[in-house]
């Protein structure tokens, strides 16, 4: 039972807030152990040192929003044996994908004095829309325990064990009281992918869906129930249109309520 060989890791960034990469640095207790087990070949946020590819494992943060990035991700894919996307930007386009529902030129001129200089694509898209992705780790931001699980899984050669059921199951496992049933607070937990530890309900707040859709999201039934709770149509649209707005199930549900 020889230990697995050292894995060559690269961390890449596209349009994002850096929070998912930071999650790796936030594994304070494990960081040096990780550095022991993997060879960090490229991780700009943490190191000047860069090593040439190919890489065994590439962690990709951020969405594709420019022509340059659309070609850069192709090169990264070619250089990576395994490519894992981390976070809502990389798996669903992130909050910046809200532009996908509007005319991007309006956005540019709102923010910039000289819009003609801006090079940006009309959409913000997930990495999987451009290249083959081996595994998607959800969350805005990702969860540190899950990130360690993913790295460990590739170090030891099995698939990451990150369940894809609803937030509710984790919520109940923690013994949290359901905010929707006990307070009438609209909650996206039943259609949202687990992984955060059911944070929002624990803090008495409805889940806002930052891990994106769960494995079999019945968004229509939930929206209907929200209607009984007094949530207006436009607020249903807003709820599905945040950090995972362009994830298919959420996109469809928002569209269904947009009049």
């Amino acid at each position, binding site marked *: *039972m020889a230990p697995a060989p050292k894995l060559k890791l690269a961390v890449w960034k596209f349009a994002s807030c850096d929070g998912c990469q930071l999650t790796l640095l936030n594994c304070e207790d494990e960081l040096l152990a990780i550095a022991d087990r993997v060879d960090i070949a490229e991780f700009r946020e943490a190191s000047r040192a860069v090593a040439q590819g190919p890489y065994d494992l590439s962690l990709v943060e951020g969405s594709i929003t420019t022509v340059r990035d659309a070609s850069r991700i192709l090169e990264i894919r070619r250089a990576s044996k395994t490519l894992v996307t981390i976070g809502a930007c990389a798996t669903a386009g992130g909050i910046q994908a809200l532009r996908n529902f509007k005319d991007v030129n309006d956005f540019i001129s709102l923010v910039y004095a000289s819009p003609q200089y801006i090079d940006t694509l009309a959409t913000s898209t997930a990495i999987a829309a451009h290249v083959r992705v081996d595994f998607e780790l959800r969350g805005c931001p990702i969860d540190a325990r899950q990130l360690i699980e993913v790295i460990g899984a590739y170090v*030891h*050669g*099995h*698939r990451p064990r990150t369940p894809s059921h609803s937030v509710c199951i984790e919520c109940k496992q923690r013994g949290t009281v359901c905010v929707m049933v006990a307070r009438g607070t609209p909650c996206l937990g039943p259609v949202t992918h687990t992984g955060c530890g059911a944070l929002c309900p624990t803090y008495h707040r409805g889940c806002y869906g930052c891990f994106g859709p769960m494995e079999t999201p019945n968004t229509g039934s939930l929206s209907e129930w929200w209607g009984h709770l007094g949530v207006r149509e436009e607020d249903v649209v807003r709820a599905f249109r945040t950090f995972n707005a362009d994830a298919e199930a959420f996109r469809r549900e928002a569209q269904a309520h947009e009049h």
Partner: protein
Amino acid sequence: MNGPLSPVGVQHVEPRQNPYVPHLAEIVEKRWEAPRIFTYRLRFRDEARRRAFRFFPGQFNMIYAFGVGEVPISIVSDPEDADLLDHTIRVAGDVTGALDRLDAGDVVGLRGPYGSGWPLEEARGKDVILVTGGLGCAPVVSVINYVVKRRESYGALKILHGIKTPKDLLYRERFQAWGRIPNTEVHLTSDQGDGQWRYHIGVVTNLFRRITIDTRNSLVMMCGPETMMRFSVRDLMTQGLSADRIYLSLERNMKCAVVLCGHCQYGPTFVCREGPVYRYDRIQPWFDVKEI
């Protein structure tokens, strides 16, 4: 439908023992059967455990790979020689993948035996018809080995095996060898043929027309994809075989194998308790229902 209907192995359980803890077993030998299919010959480290271990063909063990997980795998060796336990494993996903990375001398966790076995006592003196499909033939290999070793106690042995394409044929030599055993027929069929395929072409149920089935003195044992078994059962019954003469081995997701985790429910039964080998009439109402 209480209690198992097929023989159950001697399960040695102490009242408050932790049923999830496996025993360590050493891989004595790793033998390749086909690409991505291998047989482990395992031996418990603990001598007392080794001595106490008794099983029936058709039963399974839970095999544990360090740090990855545990999976149910049938025992294919002979029950009279329970010192060394053979398990034929097809590399499927995580756990079987991790098992594949091990080799002779390495250690796995092993607990069992669990579930029901094939009706080999009842089959004495009768014809035994084995129907298998695809890659799911490991459990019936134990029957073949058992019958072959006690050849005179059984009637005709008819082995029907269906695959999708010729390249899915595993153990070609073994099939050929079985075919040479007295009073034994082997019929192979492939859904599609190719230039080299010299056996039948078509689905496995077509083979029923190739053999004579003594409906009063035969037991059928089958194992394979559920769809294949569904069609086979239907065909055999139209040929006059009664439901209580058909046995099949089923699979369901399994976590504990000791009726504690709920995963392997099959209608009113548990595959780890009433199964994996079921007499067809006992599950007949459920067998045609989707998503049971």
